[in-house]
């Protein structure tokens, strides 16, 4: 029996490495963790391990504070979600959209309400004091926090994770990716730090909306158009933010009905499914609350009475506001029109391209480009909305792990994380921000390889230096008296510039893809 230990009388200092034991050069560290797949490890073990490890990092992030923790009088998003569980379980349906609108009134479509109701029922069963009407406001209970965090994780693993897995499996197969490459892509998508920090740190249920949206994409790329439309409507009915994708999806579906031949029947059925799903979602509300629910719901969901933007966000209006003071110069109605016009102009290119070339592999790019336009030019955009263009961009990895794709996608995600910094700092999630953003950047090779093209090199390195500079300045220079928001504005300007470049890259890539063939991994 060969001995484990070396029989050569070597000095302790030297080490030998045979060909078998030398590490294989990998394009980025994440790939290294999946090398065992190439050496015969069971794919089921690797997949299970990946899902469990993804859970561990999410739960660890969840150990940190949530939005509005111990912050009276209004607390934050955590209290909002808890409050919705409270009111949906304690009040009849007809009062859901009317109850105490000043204290975190319900402002998402009905599916969120139903979801909150379900979670609330389970929570009330465990501990009724958590959702007691009025008494439980601002409740700061450790077990409640664990329960709420668990509800996010479970919702995510039931809806978002299967959707992403299906996407990588289907899209990867179409793009000719090996099991090894698909595993890497899945890990890269699952470890996307922005979604992790927002959902499991700040506290929201965005992963459910994205899960439904990506189920829709999965259905589209596997030729189940009607089912896909159903899922997409569900996504919109969960959070109206998914409307950022709607023009692209609409263009794609319309294109499928026109090319290669006009198919009115398909169009008809699509309309039927969309309307049918909407009716199904709103039916309980109308049945138990009456038709005025729809108007109130829409009023809450689309608050046009609010201004062009609320907090500082890296979009066109807020960024150019530094120079041109929009809110002071123009009337609200004019601004609304301008915003609408700019958004429409922005979504036109990707929608036209998708309409003329309704191909499956163009979907993530189309969704991302469309969402970028909305983010940059639309009304009442929150910084969290950057997830909408970012996630389909990350899905691109499910189709190609070429160096160009990976370096641009990870750059976009890095900028995205930086743009979330003001929000995360307010929540007290400093440690989680630093660890996850640096870790993800490292995993996808930010510190290993630069992109090849000179423009990419310039953009990436320049923006990273600027990020470090702003962080350092914020830490060591502190608040400047004359310009208290200096660093946040710097953040906004840098991110806006980067987002414009990201948007341009997405459009260019979409254009190239409609012209050329698929790109494979290197």
């Amino acid at each position, binding site marked *: 029996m060969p*001995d484990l230990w070396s029989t050569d009388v070597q000095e302790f200092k030297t080490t030998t490495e045979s060909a078998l034991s030398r590490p294989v050069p990998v394009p980025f560290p994440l790939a*290294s*963790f999946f090398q065992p797949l190439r050496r*015969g490890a069971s794919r089921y073990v690797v997949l299970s391990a990946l899902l469990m490890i993804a859970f561990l990092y999410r*739960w660890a992030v969840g150990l940190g504070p949530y939005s509005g923790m111990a912050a009276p009088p209004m607390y934050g998003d955590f209290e909002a979600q808890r409050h919705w569980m409270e009111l949906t379980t304690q009040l009849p349906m007809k009062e859901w959209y009317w109850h105490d609108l000043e204290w975190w009134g319900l402002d998402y479509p009905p599916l969120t309400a139903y979801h909150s109701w379900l979670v609330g029922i389970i929570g009330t069963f465990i501990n009724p004091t958590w959702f007691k009407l009025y008494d439980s406001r601002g409740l700061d209970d450790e077990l409640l926090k664990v329960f709420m965090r668990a509800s996010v994780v479970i919702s995510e693993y039931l809806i978002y994770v299967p959707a992403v897995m299906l996407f990588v499996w289907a899209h990867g197969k179409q793009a000719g990716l090996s099991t090894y490459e698909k595993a890497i892509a899945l890990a890269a998508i699952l470890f996307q730090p922005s979604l992790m920090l927002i959902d499991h740190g700040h506290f929201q249920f965005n992963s459910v909306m994205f899960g439904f949206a990506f189920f829709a994409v999965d259905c589209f790329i596997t030729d189940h158009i009607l089912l896909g439309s159903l899922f997409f409507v569900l996504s919109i009915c969960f959070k109206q933010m998914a409307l950022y994708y709607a023009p692209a999806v609409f263009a794609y579906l319309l294109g499928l009905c026109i090319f290669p031949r006009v198919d009115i029947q398909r169009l008809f059925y699509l309309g039927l499914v969309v309307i049918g799903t909407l009716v199904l979602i709103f039916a309980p509300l109308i049945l138990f609350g009456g038709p005025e629910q729809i108007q109130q719901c829409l009023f809450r969901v689309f608050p046009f009475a609010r201004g062009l933007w609320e907090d500082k966000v890296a979009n066109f209006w807020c960024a150019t506001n530094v120079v041109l003071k929009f809110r002071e110069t123009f009337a609200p109605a004019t601004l609304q029109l301008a915003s609408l016009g700019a958004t429409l102009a922005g979504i036109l290119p990707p929608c036209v391209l998708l309409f003329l070339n309704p191909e499956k592999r163009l979907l993530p790019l189309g969704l991302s480009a469309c969402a970028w336009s909305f983010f940059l030019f639309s009304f009442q955009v929150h910084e969290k909305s950057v997830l909408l263009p970012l996630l389909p961009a990350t899905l691109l990895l499910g189709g190609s792990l070429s160096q160009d794709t990976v370096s641009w996608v990870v750059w976009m995600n890095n900028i995205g994380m930086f743009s979330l910094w003001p929000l995360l700092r307010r929540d007290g999630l400093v440690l989680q921000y630093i660890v996850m953003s640096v870790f993800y950047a490292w995993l996808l090779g930010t510190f290993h390889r630069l992109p090849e093209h000179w423009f990419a090199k310039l953009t990436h390195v320049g923006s990273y230096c600027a990020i470090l500079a702003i962080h350092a300045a914020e830490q060591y220079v502190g608040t400047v008296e004359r310009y208290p928001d200096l660093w946040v504005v710097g953040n906004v300007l840098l991110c806006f510039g980067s987002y414009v470049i990201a948007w341009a890259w997405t459009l260019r890539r979409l254009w190239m893809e409609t012209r050329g063939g698929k790109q494979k991994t290197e």
Partner: protein
Amino acid sequence: MNPTLHETTIAATALKLLLFPAYKSTDFEVHRNWLAITYSQPVRRWYYETTSPWTLDYPPFFAVFEWLLSLLAQFFDSDMLIVNNLGYSSNSTVFFQRLSVIFTELIFVYALYKLVGCVSDTSKQSAHAIALSLLLSPGLLIIDHIHFQYNGFMNGLLLLSILLARLPTTFLSSAMLFAAVLCLKHIYLYLAPAYFVYLLRNYCLGPNINLRYMFFHIRSRNCILLGATIIGIFGASFGPFVYWGQLPHLAARLFPFSRGLCHVYWAPNVWALYSFVDRALVYFAPQLGLHVQTAAIKNITRGIIGGTAFAVLPEITPRLTFLLTVIFQILPLMKLFMQPTFDNFIGTVTLCAFASFLFGWHVHEKAILLVMVPFSLLALKDNRYFTTFRSLAVAGHFSLFPLLFTAPELPIKFVYTVTWLLIFLHAFEKLAMASPIGSDCVFDRLTTLFILFTIPVAIYTSLVHGLLFGDKYEFLPLVVTSCYSAVGIMVSWIGLLRLYFA
């Protein structure tokens, strides 16, 4: 080998950094107190400071280590260094202390690099897998990074000293390092006999031995060198205290025999099973006609540190436990004396650790790490060793679960341990070579059954019991955990004994 140690360390460190806000036990305050004592008090008073109930009870080198840390601590939050700040745990304090655990653990990573380097080419893959399994050990995560202790770097030094004992040229360094480890945490004393016999036979005595005629060749130069080294290390460590006449006081601090046979959470050893049988017999005593000591029944749950009394079975004294430990250590030591190969040395270290864990007085369940680290080195010798290792891996880690009883940490300990077991039991199974002798099918099946049955037991003790009974019968899940793990650990021990003496 992918993933490399360096990449895995980064990924693991990311997770450990995220765990900073997690639950921390009183051990956190213990170490903060020691930072304060060593920073603010003169050395003379280190072992006499009693402001806090968590008095210094590690050997002097660890106190020096804490002192060195305290020099850095002052830049993070100097308030933690005030002895009277009992229970002080500001964010900076937590940050500093947890960070220090991560940093000092790099010594362990270095030792793992050396482990992979020491191994012959054909076994590099196995060694790499073992190294990764030790790096990511759930035991270290639970104990060091959450509960809070500094086992990582001490196990690193221990591992280095074991590896240094492979070649005759580095025997002296190995002994020096081991002596230093002893002066850091005296629990490693249990492994000292193995070192003693191994070095005696290989270093102090000549290669030819004839026991029949009591013929030894004593290599006096080596003896003197070894003796001087060890005396030097111990002198450097305990010297000042001997000079001040504090040695008896130190001894009382380091070896507190006033504590009971079993720790608060029963370590999964023989005495846990013994206590369980005793409790069970209390109920059956009338039928069996056994005399029951009524006084002992009062501490029915026995969750407190203190005297443990047995109602039916005979009393256990420290002397008895010592005797049993010695007996079960002497057996492998004898084989080591006759065949002092490096393989046998590792086996003996493991068996000594096993004996002390299973039969010792006031054993902490955390001491199972002492068994798992050397055993990991043996796990891939062939698949019989792997089978034996499996039940220890499962039972040992499961026995650590009661250390983390808070709700947020429950999913972490569960999922992390299950993931580790899934990855490494799968990897090891692929890497362990078939034994030429053939494996024991019955033993194989028994260990598999044990492992499978652990899942429902774990779910019961961590989750179901709390949901069904709330806070009542708190001792029940603890007893179940200890006794079930004890069975697994004993099975592993018996298996290793069989393989060792085969």
